[in-house]
């Protein structure tokens, strides 16, 4: 578990967030992520996130389902165990289409859900560091990743000038881990460090 240093800036207004994101990116700080209480339209563009490739993955899962269904059914019903069903030809494509369709949907849906969970680092029993609990309530939490050379005090005042109502330094695990919060991490341990 590699811990990293982060500077967290909290904004209480969506309208302040966008110019702040722009400033932070112009100066060249690396935004780790932004946590918001609700989906903010256009924030992904402002942050410069690339388009998700989830749909490409979905397409690949889909055609995998199609080929699985068609190859399985055609092999079973023409080579392995041909049956005479209502006098239809063994290679009865129209009858297979519904199953092919269902399998396409099933593969695409299940595959995409799993991929989505992986991309968002979500799974049962898996934990992720919470930078600020009020990100689920009323604060827009911008997390900036620091390097060895980052002057964290400068960064904090930079964020305050950009409109952050709270800034704080956190050393936290950036990735997901299996465990529990109360053993690995105390949620409010940094409370006294928060500069108002």
């Amino acid at each position, binding site marked *: 578990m590699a811990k990293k240093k982060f500077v967290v800036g909290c904004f209480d207004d969506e309208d302040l967030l966008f110019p702040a994101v722009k400033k932070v990116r112009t100066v060249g700080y690396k935004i780790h992520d932004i946590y918001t209480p609700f989906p903010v*339209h*256009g924030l992904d563009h402002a942050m410069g996130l690339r*388009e998700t490739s989830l*749909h490409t993955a979905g*397409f690949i899962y889909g055609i995998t389902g199609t080929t699985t269904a068609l190859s399985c059914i055609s092999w079973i019903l023409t080579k392995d165990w041909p049956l005479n069903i*209502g*006098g*239809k030809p063994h290679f009865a494509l*129209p*009858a297979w*289409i*519904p199953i092919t369709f269902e399998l396409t949907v099933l593969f695409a849906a299940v595959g995409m859900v799993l991929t989505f969970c992986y991309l968002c680092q979500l799974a049962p029993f898996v934990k992720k560091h919470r930078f600020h609990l009020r990100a689920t309530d009323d604060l827009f939490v911008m997390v900036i990743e620091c390097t060895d050379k980052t002057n964290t005090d400068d960064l904090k005042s930079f964020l305050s000038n950009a409109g952050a109502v709270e800034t704080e330094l956190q050393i936290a695990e950036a990735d997901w881990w299996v465990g529990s919060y109360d053993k690995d991490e105390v949620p409010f341990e940094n409370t006294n460090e928060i500069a108002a």
Partner: protein
Amino acid sequence: MASIKEQFEIPGKLKTWSYALIAVGAVALLAGLFKSGMSKDEHEQAIFIGTVMYNTIFWTLVCNASMFFICITTLAMGGWQQSFRRVPEAISTMVPIFGSITLVVLLYVGFAGKHHIYHWLDTEAVNNDPILKGKSGFLNLKFFVVWTTLAIGLWTLLGYRMRKLSSEADSGAFDNVTGAKFIFKNTVGASMFIAWFGLTVGSTIPWLWMMSITPHWYSTMYSWYTFMSSFVSGMSLIALWVVYLKNKGYLEYTNQEHLHDLGKFMFAFSIFWTYLWFSQYMLIWYANIPEETVYFKTRVQGAYKGIFFFNLIINFLCPLLILMKRDAKRNYTLITFMGILILFGHWIDFYQMVMGSISKDHVTLGWLDFGILSLFVGLMILFVAKALSSKPLIAKYHPFLKESIIHHT
């Protein structure tokens, strides 16, 4: 609100093109009329009438689909279509024009008793045929004439009322009360159109006009299938006009976001069309009862085999694979290409639906079909352009316009 180009001026080139297409079409129509239309051979004559018939029915239904789109978005309280709503409105002005052509053709077929097209017009044959006798409550000349006239008349009337109502949003801003009243009146008008649309295009009209060419056969899917064909072509036509106007520098408030949604309609309803195509086909294939397979016999195993499956490729596989990506739906060139392809594909679909029953043994697709198509395309371009230029391109004071301007997919 910087100055926007509200008034469409018909470019000379567009006029020239439409006149050229109409001229080509008129020559083809006359040539067809003299070659086969006035022929003594009833079958030859039926081919000519059938060719005119499927073209005029196709274009009437496609243009009517525009009004359906307006009404359905109105009922759904949709705002996103407001920035280009005058385009489907202009296309729907074609309903009276193409509708009257359809009416003339169908009434001629009915009153002249062209039983090579509608076998059930032959009273003697009906009396000796228990199946046709059972259907004679629906398939008889009186009902055919009344229902056809009523259908076209009410599409025209209810559509006209919707367009007239839309003009109210040109004159001045609404306050809260008049605005709500305006929306309510739109809702009422749209509901009336949709109700009538459901009784006609959604059910009876395709049975009456096209399915009854094979009177012994029936499919409850048929009307929805025809309706979807016309709806997806209608959406393509709207998209084509929107792209055209964008290229000419009009419709400033319409952008890729709106095009994306139009593309979604084209994509989704191509797939829905295929769903209906398959639902109709598979049940009949599975049951394999002669009285039901008679329709597919000529199409799947007979002369129309090529067209039948070609149809499935351009109406299903191409939209599925080409329009699937987000970028494709936001790309003006690709939407134009797919719009033309889908329109052509469903025109071919209507061709095989009608001509596959009239001329069972050989495919008649040739100069006459494309000539008459060009006549209808020319008329469509000419009159839609005229309708576009007769009104501001944007209903400036429509309460939902802002929603369309900031629309984001």
